[in-house]
């Protein structure tokens, strides 16, 4: 998994049927100092994340498991809302 921040969302009215009802959020991955690391991506939400939330997300086939038994075609899913990041010596801060 990786740390990230929700910075936006995507609206797709025409999409594959099995994505119906799923929220598409834009996530900016974060590094150990809380700064942007790599490029933003679109992830499904499985925990009710909102704009500006610090989250963590999962990649790959496992990213569709929160939606079982439905087979949802997704490769990145937000699987946790972060309360605290404890990295001694880091400037990571949750707004």
């Amino acid at each position, binding site marked *: *998994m*990786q*740390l990230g921040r929700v910075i936006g969302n995507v609206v797709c009215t025409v999409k594959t049927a099995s994505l119906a009802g799923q929220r598409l959020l834009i996530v900016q*991955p974060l*590094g*150990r100092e809380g700064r942007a*690391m*790599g490029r933003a991506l679109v992830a499904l939400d*499985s*925990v*009710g994340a909102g704009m500006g939330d610090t989250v*963590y997300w*999962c*990649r*790959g*086939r*496992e*990213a569709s*498991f*929160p939606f*079982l038994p439905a087979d949802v075609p997704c490769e990145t*899913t937000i*699987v*946790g*809302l*972060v*309360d*605290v*990041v*404890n*990295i*001694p010596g*880091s400037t990571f801060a949750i707004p």
Partner: protein
Amino acid sequence: MLIARIIGDVVATHKAPSHHGRKILVVQPLDLDGSDRGGAVLALDSVDAGIGDRVLLVTEGFSAMTAVGRPDSPIDMAVIGVIDAVHLDD
């Protein structure tokens, strides 16, 4: 798998049910010379590792789920060993 260092942990009360009861560790993969190898990632603990430990990190879902013992879970990384020593052919 990768050699890595645990540099912190994360608290998340609201998360995938299968993540409950496991520490969420902040892990920094390392090159053989000990320098950072890419960015830090999060992994679930399966060997009771702590901050500062040098560990073995698996970065693929099936292996991670198996190590943590939770099938069908949204887990793609896990700490699966605490490293005592690394020997290199000189």
